């Protein structure tokens, strides 16, 4: 009985130590991975420019190209969501792009939006949402950035 209980206790101790170590490693690696890839790609938003074409009579086409990188150790899912909103928070146009980026590689996220001529006047602001998720998309960091439309219709 004593031998049996000692065996159970030994197994329990090993399981407990292994589980603690595994959790610590998973938290450290995935936390680091999502943080470095997020910082790298969020910095890219500042250097990327939104291209606009067309006018209020034909409608406006907005294109956004964001180079994304994964300097981490695990695969990252990078997602960009671009929304054009009216004053009353109504979504006028929306575009999404998502890519899986293997560790140590880079890619591009591309979003193209079309604002129809009848909605151009209502166009008040744009919202950029960037998300970097890792560890089978279980852990992630996201950024939501809002920019008001400046001046008259582009």
């Amino acid at each position: 009985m004593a031998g049996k209980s000692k065996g159970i206790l030994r197994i329990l101790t090993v399981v407990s130590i292994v589980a603690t170590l595994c959790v610590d490693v998973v938290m450290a690696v995935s936390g680091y991975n999502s943080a470095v890839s997020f910082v790298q790609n969020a910095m890219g938003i500042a250097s990327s420019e939104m291209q606009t074409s067309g006018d209020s009579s034909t409608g406006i086409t907005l294109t956004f190209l964001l180079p994304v990188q994964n300097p981490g150790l695990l695969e990252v899912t990078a997602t960009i969501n671009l929304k054009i909103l009216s004053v009353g928070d109504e979504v006028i146009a929306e575009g999404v792009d998502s890519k899986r980026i293997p560790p140590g590689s880079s890619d591009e996220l591309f979003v193209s939006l079309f604002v129809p001529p009848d909605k151009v006047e209502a166009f008040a602001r744009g919202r950029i949402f960037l998300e970097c998720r890792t560890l089978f998309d279980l852990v992630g960091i996201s950024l939501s950035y809002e920019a008001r439309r400046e001046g008259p219709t582009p």
Partner: protein
Amino acid sequence: MKREEKGQLHDHEEVNRVWKMVILRKIIKAVLSAVLPIIILVVVPNVVSQRIPAEMLPFIEEMIPLHGLIMSISVIGVVLAILSFSLNMVDDWSLIKLLSSIASAFISFYMWLLLLGLGDPSRMGVTQLSVEIATITLDFRFFIILELLLLGISIFSAIVKFYFARKEHLAGR
């Protein structure tokens, strides 16, 4: 007869010496186990926070209640140190050991809730940091699930250890 008495006295002294050694070893082990949480959760965070450049502090404080967070972590460190000391001082069959182990596991879990919520444990791993017109969201809910799993394993392990130790102790009596 005298030689026998002398021998018994010598044996008694030897038992006393061994007993003292065992107690001393227990105290050293308990003190060492209590020092670790003090270093990791009290000394390190306070030293690191003092090394943050003064011009960066208002910016950090705008997003995270840094002072409160470090204070809470320090208090948790002291409590964990006391629990760790008591854990190593009592026998395995003692109810104090079981309660200390369970309390220690719950406090560790609370500490993770506090850390992952950046000072607010009610956030349950989802934290939003607002900086002017941008909002950064940290989604670490999966880490909370992992910590919950560890909490379960720790409590189960403490109960099983206590059960077998108690059984052995009662059988020995």
